[in-house]
């Protein structure tokens, strides 16, 4: 599969964004997608998610939505055969496209290059009575962003050994509302601010040495929602539901005083979750069970510049 993939330029993107925003990128995607496996479809949803092969000018080659490796390889082989039949003028744009057209709509334009960018992994923790659950090892990944001034505010104003500091509520709320969610098995909704019962986090400076401050974190968050909503994918029934996550937070980090940035950062938020949402795969797992998030510094590859899933909730312009 990876050998086949090398014959393509591989890229990944968020389909709802491509289906709904304006600009050349989204328009080209829609041209391709309407020739693909879900072209014209409106029920059960109008999603166009899947894997597409196309030429740079948008000429459609093949598409599929599958997790089956053989079917995926078949689609790629079909696409390559079709590609070889196309003349250059039938597969390339007449002019090279601009790397980042001004009318292109991307949250990634807000990437905080001089701030703090974290990978946010989530996974269920072992249970007292483990079942034969195919989802037991499921995990997910998101990114959490903080601008430079926000990253600095994880520390006390005066960085000296023993200093205690309450992390600004705005930052703890960002974590509690938009990141400490049950996305282990699939997409879910962030919490509303009114659903946050508590969100507190504190920092203590353990050591200041060789231009670096070593700090520890502790905190706790709790989110609770009650209402009527769907928990089973396309099942149209919306019943009385409750969901929540009560997390304890521990972690540590190293702040470079000269560079004014974190050079190490690790945070664990763990505790019981309960309930589910329409697409997060909890329809048969609504009872309370342990879950954890792990936040660590992201690297600097393009794949690690992807915007947080709920970036729209940051309020950033």
């Amino acid at each position, binding site marked *: 599969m990876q050998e086949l993939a090398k014959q393509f330029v591989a890229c990944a*993107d968020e389909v709802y964004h491509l289906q709904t925003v304006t600009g050349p990128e989204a328009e080209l995607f829609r041209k391709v997608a309407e020739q693909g496996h879900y072209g014209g479809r409106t029920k059960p949803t109008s999603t166009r998610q899947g894997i597409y092969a196309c030429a740079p000018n948008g000429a459609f080659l093949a598409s599929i939505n599958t997790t089956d490796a053989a079917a995926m390889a078949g689609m790629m082989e079909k696409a390559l055969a079709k590609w070889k039949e196309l003349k250059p003028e039938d597969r390339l744009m007449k002019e090279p496209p601009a790397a980042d057209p001004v009318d292109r709509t991307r949250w*990634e334009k807000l990437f905080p290059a001089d701030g703090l960018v974290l990978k946010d992994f989530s996974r269920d923790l072992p249970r007292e009575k483990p079942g034969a659950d195919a989802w037991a090892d499921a995990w997910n990944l998101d*990114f959490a962003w903080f601008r430079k001034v926000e990253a600095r505010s994880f520390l006390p104003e005066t960085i000296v050994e023993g200093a205690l500091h309450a992390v600004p509520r705005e930052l703890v709320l960002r974590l509690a509302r938009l990141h400490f969610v049950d996305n282990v098995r699939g*997409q879910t909704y962030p919490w509303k601010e009114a659903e946050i019962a508590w969100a507190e986090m504190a920092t203590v400076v353990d050591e200041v040495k060789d231009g670096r401050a070593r700090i520890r974190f502790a905190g706790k968050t709790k989110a609770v929602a009650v209402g009527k909503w769907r928990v089973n994918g396309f099942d149209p029934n919306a019943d009385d539901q409750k969901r929540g996550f009560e997390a304890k937070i521990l972690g540590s980090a190293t702040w470079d005083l000269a560079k004014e940035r974190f050079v190490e950062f690790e945070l664990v938020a763990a*505790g019981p979750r309960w309930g589910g949402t329409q697409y997060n795969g909890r329809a048969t797992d609504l009872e309370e069970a342990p879950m*954890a998030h792990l936040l660590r510094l992201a690297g600097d590859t393009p794949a690690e510049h992807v915007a947080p*899933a709920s970036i729209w909730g940051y309020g950033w312009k």
Partner: protein
Amino acid sequence: MRPAALFLTLACSATLGAQELTESTYEKIRDRVLPSADELRWTAVDWRASFWDGVVEAQKTDKPILLWAMNGHPLACT
């Protein structure tokens, strides 16, 4: 709650269950959540992080594009 109290109540609770986050369970829980190398095999593909990045590169190299498009970015939360 005052910052010092948070550390006292959260870091020092030692009599709770195996999944309770304390300083003594921290590493075990962290290591459980962290994906294994096998779970990260998909990152071996040189993914561009947007469709347009793929279009620009494919035009330059005269290659076809393979786009993975999902609800939730496939390189992150999907």
